[in-house]
């Protein structure tokens, strides 16, 4: 398979994105717009549509749960929160993130 820079960037961002979503939700229960705002602020996603399949897959994997909450305007909203398994998964991801970060830091700082 030929190396496609865009593809590799997308792949890097993809794994990273799930990590960040879990991070956002772990702080407090969040609904889609909250998550989107955070992600946009961090300039992590280009289009909102990316989020929905990720949320759905995380939920189906048992890492997320949601409950309906009334909102001031409009119909009730889905508020996502982490399950126990979600918390464990987030910890694992954090560990591997730290590992990756230090690995990259070591390699980048090593001047031979």
């Amino acid at each position, binding site marked *: 398979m030929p190396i496609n820079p865009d593809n590799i960037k997308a792949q890097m961002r993809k794994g990273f994105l799930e990590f960040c979503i879990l991070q956002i939700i772990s702080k407090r229960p969040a609904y889609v717009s909250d998550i989107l705002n955070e992600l946009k602020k961090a300039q992590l996603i*280009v289009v909102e549509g990316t989020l929905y399949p990720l949320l759905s897959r995380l939920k189906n994997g048992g890492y997320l749960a949601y409950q309906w909450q009334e909102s001031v305007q409009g119909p009730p909203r889905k508020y996502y929160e982490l399950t126990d398994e979600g918390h464990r998964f987030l910890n694992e991801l954090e560990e591997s993130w730290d590992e990756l970060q230090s690995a990259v830091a070591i390699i980048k700082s090593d001047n031979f």
Partner: protein
Amino acid sequence: MKKTLTINLNGQVFNIDEDAYQTLRQYLEDLGRHFAPEERDEILKDIEAQIAELFTERLANRNVVEMPDVLAVMDTLGQPSQFGDEEEAAPSEPSQSSQSSQPSDTGEARKRPRKLYRDTDNKWIGGVCSGLAAYMDWDPTILRIIFLAVFLLGIGSPLFIYILLWICMPEANSVAQQLEMRGVEPNVDNIRNFSSRTDVSQPKDSGTMGRVLKVLVIVLLSLIGLSLFATIFGIFMAAVLAGFHLVPWFTAGVNEILLLLSVALFLLCPAISIVMFCVYLVNNQKPRHKWVIWTLVLLWLISIAGMAVTGVRTYNNRHNLDVGRFLWELKQSETPMHDEWVDENTFPVLKIDTGTVAQSGDSSISHE
């Protein structure tokens, strides 16, 4: 002025322009195709909820969702190809994967297999020719000319084929279908391009080949039309002459006159159509007076029926006449034969068996 539809998004009611609705529906269908079946419904529900929220935000004081709103929402949510994670999902379109995150690569350059639709935006009759032309990337005028030529030459049954295609081919209603008809991926950008293009409905320039062909066809059609009119005039005159017994040796009954008029009508309808076709062809415009065409078709069918009925009747009359003449001739030839060598007493049975023939012969004999 536009027609609006009422839609329900996540329990909220929106009024939406028809074109905007078509685009939104196509978008949701595209999204649906992108996700795996087991997660599709839920994701689409979430997305619909988000769309409802975005619409509410955008509408503020307005009542109707319009095309710009839908396009803006589609921009915010993005195309399935931009989601960048379709490796697991979308088993149906594996080739499209990993073309991620660049809206520019969804331009018109990306072709897909064309679909056969009736192009009712450029139609003359049912949009069959224009649809076929779009499918084969031809000029519809050339296809129409071929169709008409085949029809006039009487090869096969193009009329029947046309009606069959008319029934079989679906109409290209939405912008997305019109794009599919031309083999263009019906995504946001292309739909936007297509919608904003002003020259969509204008007839295409047919090129030098097309123009030369056009002139040839006009000349040919004029000749055919002229000869048809001459024939019709002749038939009409014949009907008048025969009907009013203006010429002693050429008379006809009501049936024969009706037959002649039916034939004249049968020729007149295509003749008028040819003239109209030529006028439209010269002016490079679509047929406007639909009712004229339909009236002509109706008259033409009536003339066929008329020809059938009066033709059969005339043939029967003619047959009777012929039988009469035959009997008369027989009678004429019978008399001398009788005199020469037929003895009445020898063949008494013949008289009874041949019925009228023998009887009339008999009477002529008795006259002598």
